[in-house]
């Protein structure tokens, strides 16, 4: 038996952004950047580790909206074009840096190499569908893929039991569609929990959920092993809570690894550095500057102004990331011994959940960190064993029964990020739609074909309006206009459809257009919103 267990959990989620009504749409770049910088590298690394016999083991949430976007032919086609253009730009940069900016030549070469490999992986190995790649990793025993809320709806702020249930059941059905089995666990959207959520999960066949630290530490009774062992709710659903020390080591902007001076600087991008005329073919139709993903500088120092950043040196960064991975493992061993001593021999479990997008997008070297971490874990030590939450449940170790307390993983630990002065206006509209959905689902017991289409689409619109991403971004002050518009659009579409249904005068052209745009969850059945 190892001294301690370690469970890495990656949360891969993006809101559903798909705009077939326009030939290109800026916010679709969120998905494209994440595929290039996060999902492709992580899949590639995990597959290589598996083939090398290193036996990586972790849990990963691939959220339902992300699965739906990754499996969508329109977005696959648009991403292919995006990646081809990016490679074209990288090759153009390789030529340019031969004559000018010679100090960036190596980095330009790195991008050409990486993007060429990415295009091959995308087109040939994964055949443009990364859901299948994730599924394969699960079947190989590398990943334990867990689900999330259907659209990442913040469960405690959803007003009806039926609408909360729909977030969970639609997610589980979608998981079955993509992964061919039932999910064992769920990443509660924003780790937002309140008493009663566990009953929804149990009803959907889910064995465990991920929570924030104080859900367990402030739970009742006191947890004997703190957050370093799961607990089970009185209804039998297990809870795995976030370890703070590992969060800070990786995620903190002050002491976290990603802030090292040799790592790539995120905010210095050629999209802002080079002449507009040169960049024009790679910008949007409005010609506005944006991040293009080719960055030539290292962080250099915390207080160094952007204009004084030094060139990025990949070999230096690679040395540092290997060093950081070794340090992380060393700290886990120290932590495990300390916890074991505190727990009088009981083997501790450290649960480390992170946004997947931290690894590769925000922290460019993050995927390399995962690579080194699992290699060193396998070859260089025996004290720590990487397992998934499901593995821990299967181990048969006894688990304390406890009632967790309401919490989230957001700023201040509760619901402030999603309910505050900036976004509270959203809830009366959302709650009205939730009530209306159940009223109509109850009323239309035997719908005609057209009524069925309308009711199913209303379900999709409600779910999309509930996405916690809109309230989050409105609070944070990023993409406020787009997020407000998206929320208003889904409530508007829901209302148009409901009016057509209730007045028996549906606009079929309108319905078809909305179905075409918001095509998430083809398998949805509106009856999930019925009163039970």
């Amino acid at each position: 038996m190892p001294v301690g267990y370690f469970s890495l959990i990656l949360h891969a989620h993006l809101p559903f952004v798909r705009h077939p009504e326009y030939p290109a749409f800026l916010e679709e770049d969120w998905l494209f950047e994440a595929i290039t910088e996060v999902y492709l590298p992580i899949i590639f690394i995990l597959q290589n580790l598996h083939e090398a016999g290193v036996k990586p083991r972790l849990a990963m949430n691939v959220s339902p909206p992300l699965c739906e976007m990754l499996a969508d032919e329109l977005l696959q086609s648009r991403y292919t074009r995006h990646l081809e253009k990016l490679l074209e730009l990288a090759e153009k940069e390789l030529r340019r840096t031969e004559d000018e900016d010679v100090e960036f030549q190596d980095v330009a070469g790195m991008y050409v190499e990486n993007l060429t490999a990415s295009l091959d992986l995308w087109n040939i190995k994964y055949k443009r569908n990364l859901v299948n790649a994730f599924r394969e990793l699960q079947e190989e025993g590398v990943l334990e893929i867990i689900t999330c809320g259907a659209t990442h709806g913040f469960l405690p702020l959803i007003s009806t039991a039926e609408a909360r249930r729909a977030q969970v059941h639609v997610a589980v059905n979608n998981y079955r569609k993509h992964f061919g089995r039932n999910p064992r666990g769920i990443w509660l959207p924003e780790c937002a929990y309140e008493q009663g959520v566990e009953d929804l999960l149990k009803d959907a066949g889910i064995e465990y959920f991920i929570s924030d630290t104080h859900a367990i530490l402030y739970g009742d009774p006191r947890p004997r092993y703190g957050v370093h062992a799961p607990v089970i709710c009185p209804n039998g659903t297990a809870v795995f809570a976030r370890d703070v020390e590992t969060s800070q080591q990786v995620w903190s902007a002050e002491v976290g690894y990603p802030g090292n001076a040799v790592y790539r600087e995120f905010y210095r991008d050629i999209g802002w550095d080079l002449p507009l005329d040169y960049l024009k073919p790679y910008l949007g139709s409005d010609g506005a500057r944006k991040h293009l993903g080719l960055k030539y500088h290292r962080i250099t120092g915390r207080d160094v102004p952007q204009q004084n950043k030094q060139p990025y040196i990949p070999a230096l960064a690679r040395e540092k990331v290997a060093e950081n991975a070794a340090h992380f493992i060393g700290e886990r061993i120290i932590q495990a011994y300390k916890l074991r001593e505190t727990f009088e021999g009981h083997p501790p479990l450290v649960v480390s959940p992170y946004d997947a997008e931290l690894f590769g997008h925000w922290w460019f070297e993050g995927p390399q960190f995962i690579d080194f971490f699992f290699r060193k874990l396998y070859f260089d030590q025996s004290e720590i064993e990487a397992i998934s939450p499901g593995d821990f449940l299967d181990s048969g170790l006894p688990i304390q029964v406890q009632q967790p307390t309401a919490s989230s993983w957001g700023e201040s630990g509760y619901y402030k990020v999603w309910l505050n002065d900036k976004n509270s206006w959203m809830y009366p509209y959302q709650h009205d739609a939730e009530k209306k959905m159940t009223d109509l689902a109850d009323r239309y017991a035997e719908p005609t074909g057209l009524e069925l289409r309308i009711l199913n689409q209303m379900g999709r619109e409600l779910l999309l309006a509930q996405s916690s991403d809109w309230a989050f971004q409105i609070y944070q002050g990023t993409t406020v206009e787009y997020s407000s518009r998206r929320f208003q659009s889904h409530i508007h579409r829901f209302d148009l459809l409901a009016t057509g249904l209730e007045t028996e005068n549906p606009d079929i052209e309108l319905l078809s257009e909305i179905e075409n745009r918001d095509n998430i969850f083809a398998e949805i059945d509106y009856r999930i919103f019925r009163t039970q």
Partner: protein
Amino acid sequence: MSEKDTKGRFSGIELEGEKTFEFVIDEFSPISSMTIIQAEDVPAGPLDPKEIALDPAARDSEVEAGSQVFRQLAAPKLPELSKENRAKLLMQSPNRLYFYWSVKNNPFQTLNRAIGNKTNSYVLVSKLVNLNSGREELNPIDADGSYWFNVDANSEYQAEIGFYAANRTYIRVMFSNKVQTPRKNPSPRAASTAEWAVSANKFAQVLDVAGFSQDAFDVALAGDDWDVSEKATEIAFSHFTGGVEDRTTGIESGEIRFVMLALASGATLESLRWRISPSLFAILQQSSANLNIENALVALQDQFDFDADEIIEEEISPAVFGASLINFPRTLKRMRNLTKINPVSSSDRPICATG
């Protein structure tokens, strides 16, 4: 309970010894205007649809050339909220609740029919009730709106809309759902079975290794005998504020100790305003003359055995990389030796009501 549960028509109800009425307001004309009470924090509200009438990605020419459906969807607008009875209470944090409401029809007309010209003395109010302590907070309101309440942690609340007049019967219109605010520190209760029971000192170590050093300090300070530590806290606070002991009913003793430790470390009362329950803040405001570092330290050390240099200094939670806003716990600048702290239950120092 929701607005759907509002039932009966002027059926008298006895609640907590108070004569109240409740009724459904319907079949009457909408309210024209009433006294507008400005909420403490005015919601920013949705962007004005006129300001973002067209999708930024939709160039004018595209919109003009598009079908009617395209144009309709390119200018999303929120529907008018239907005239309904709504009373929804939402938890934002252990110390803050959000309440929004609307009244379907003019409640004053109904009231007028029932009590005639006595209506004039009544105002429409929201009432928040702490179902644990029975404390109530009334605010005059408009027929629809929203409000932020400052509340106590670990308590159950329900809001309602009703009519209030001084020295007259309160008349309830509708209820909200009930909301439980969470505790914001560890449970005082250890498991009862031997397998999972944990002593205060051991649990303090568990909290400390989890990174919750401030909670660890408090758990060690409070010790295993909850009744004893509650009493000691009450006495210490009473001495500190120079007040009577029973004013802290319903306030968690952990929060009281937190406040005293924070003030002993040099924090100002104002810096604690949004981090503690409003009732505790109100008591402290009334006792502002006594609030200084020395008094806090003396009051605490009189009841709890710890060194002055162990007083808490809070670290600011670090920012994180990327787009997330992740919560980090309250921590101490210096790691404390938790074994140095003598819980009340094992201290030789007698608990003394007079200090």
